[in-house]
């Protein structure tokens, strides 16, 4: 039995070494090679270049609090919103008073930025996303903010609404996921066109 256990340790050690090299080095390197060859933009973070500046990744949300921009989802990352180095949700439970006060704060912010808007507020604008980096808002959440943007930028509301329509990302293949709007792209288009 002793000999058997010893032999198993030898096999175990060698095969662990072998698989560390195969699945820990060769496999990720091979995938990186293939990924860089076939999908180099995606593999490197889908960065958006605007006037020679890297302004962000298509998939990593940014924090907007300026009323002239569309705002994204509230973010729970610390110490500041949309900290890409500390992805995290709020993890507030449904009966936690802190959840209710966080929602109230968001309602106040939205109302303060545009006191005339009495439309129902889309739930995405009041709740914190799972990653804290959600790059999207729903179509309704963009529509809700249109009147504020139009007022501050002093452009016709229709103009903003058309821009939103243009930026809508439909359900993938027509049925997967939810229709949505990329906040960073929308704001870039806003600065560009309005």
């Amino acid at each position, binding site marked *: 039995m002793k000999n*058997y256990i010893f032999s*198993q*340790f030898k*096999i175990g*050690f*060698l*095969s662990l070494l*072998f698989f560390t090299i195969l*699945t*820990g080095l060769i*496999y*990720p390197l091979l*995938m*990186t090679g293939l990924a*860089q060859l076939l999908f180099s933009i*995606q593999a*490197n*973070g*889908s960065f958006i270049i605007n006037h020679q*500046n890297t*302004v*962000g*990744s298509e*998939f*990593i*949300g*940014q*924090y*907007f609090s*300026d009323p002239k921009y569309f705002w994204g*989802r509230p973010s729970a990352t610390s110490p*500041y*919103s*949309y900290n890409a180095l500390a*992805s995290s*949700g709020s*993890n*507030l*439970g*449904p*009966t*936690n008073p802190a*959840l*209710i006060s966080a*929602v109230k704060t968001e309602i106040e912010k939205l109302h303060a930025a545009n006191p005339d808007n009495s439309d129902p507020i889309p*739930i995405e604008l009041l*709740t*914190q*996303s*799972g*990653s804290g980096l*959600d*790059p*999207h808002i729903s179509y309704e959440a963009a529509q*809700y903010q249109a009147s504020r943007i139009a007022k501050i930028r002093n452009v016709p509301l229709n103009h903003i609404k058309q821009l939103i329509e243009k930026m809508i990302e439909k359900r*993938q293949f027509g*049925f*997967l*996921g939810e229709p949505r709007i990329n906040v960073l792209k929308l704001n*870039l288009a806003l600065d560009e066109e309005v």
Partner: protein
Amino acid sequence: MTENSIIQVLFYLTVLLLLVKPLGLYMAWIYEGQPCFVDRVLKPIERTIYRLCFIKPEQEMNWKEYSIAMLVFSLLGTLAVYAIQRFQVFLPLNSEHFAAVPLDLSFNTAVSFITNTNWQAYTGESTLSYFTQMTALTVQNFLSAASGMSVLIALIRGIQRRETTDLGNFWVDTVRGIIYILIPLAIVLALLLVSQGVIQNFKGYQKAKLMQKVEYQEPMTDNTGQAIKDTAGNPITQAKVLTEQVIPMGPVASQVAIKQLGTNGGGFFNANSAHPFENPTPFSNFLEMLAIMLIPAALCYTFGVMVKDKSQGWAIFLAMLLIFLPLMFLTLCAEHRVNPEIIKISDAQILQKNGNMEGKETRFGALNSALWAAATTATANGSVNAMHDSFLPLGGLIPLWFINLGEVIFGGVGSGLYQMLIFIIITVFVSGLMVGRTPEYLGKKIESYEIKMASFAILIMPLVVLLCTAVGLITEVGKSSIANPGAHGLSEVLYAFSSMTNNNGSAFAGINANTLFYNILGGFAILIGRFWIAIPVLAIAGSLVQKKIVPSSAGTLPTNTPLFIGILISIVLIIGALTFFPAFALGPIVEQLMIYGY
């Protein structure tokens, strides 16, 4: 639930169902060593491993030898993962200069990854170097999954073979599982994920110029890293202005692919598959969700092929599916509603059509988040694309219940089915008692030794979960980690120990799991939950394999009928419900009543 929700759910289930048979058949070929169309490419690699590692593929093992090989491999794996984390400062590919991972966290992560649990007490993007992610975590994602499958295959051989002690060779089963099943699937999935936007590179963290500056208060720290506080005990902060966003990079797709396929679930990033770089689009979400269930579901068919009666495999599959569907449906319904506590806020009207979005991502919505939650907890995967802690009480109860059914509803790769086979042994035993006959399963008599071992395997899990939860709830060290007040706090502790003991790995993540108490006690719960079940399973295999096949007679209870499926489902649900109902009543059930009860 809208029409589109139903279409998405049906599409998911249909694709899964279509893949069960081909993949199940393929896996049966691989484990039976039959010649196969991929041999030309993979056989040379397999032979090289045997030669280099002194593996004698023709050598058969009895159950004790098989167990020893598995334990040795796990022990060496633990040491390696532990050492790599502790020494990552001295190892390459540490572009962000992360320090050595603390002792208790390294221990927890090591045992959690070798047992296929992948509980995430670490924060990937700020703790682990690329080298650690690859050579410690990714490697164990393959190895722990493969060794779980090997134990299952040994048990199946115990049922299939007769009057021998040979259960196969652990090394051969594990090597073949990795080379022929996991690696090819992972390569395909990783590439598909990259095409959707999952990153795969070795760059340092990238900087992007923010469109709008971010002003914030940063807590000041002294040179030991402790927060400085003023005389009133409040932390002193300083105003900072941010003009750039630092975005983490890394070889993500290669790890995400195998973490989904191998029911591992430990993420590259803290937010796991809610992170846009792990799961950027609805299609990547679909693929990852499919990968969660794929192998565990297909193994039912593999079982049927290997015992030469496919209806037996389908019967198990059906039993699992019939438990999965209604519970999944409940979670979907719960999460399609907005939290009534939020609706009650009188300051504004709220547009409710998108359901409970706290902790969820816009691109997935309530539907895909709830569907994922059901899939990831029914199987022992444990990756998340939404924060379970912020689910409504019923929505969170179902994942917790799935985990505490013992991870048998598809379950972990290999481990799910071998634990379900233990429930089947209990079921034929109970049925046998009712008619007064010696119970048998697929021609093998089930006798007192098997029942003793099965009881061992079944009783240990609730015992560990409930005891550890109790300890967590009465000690200061346990309670201080709780994030949410009231009944929800109890759910957090219960979920943590349920998830660790059942080797799931998801969390009510508000709980601060990275403390000495949770890392160490949880680490032992993880180990017991894996090996205290796997070893009795191998013992049962060792006992069954020596028995004769009893020809079936008029008195034999057929195990592929609706009647049997019904009894099996009842036994699984009764054991799962009775043991945990009191604990659930104090947590999610109370909370549900608090919200909807008046």
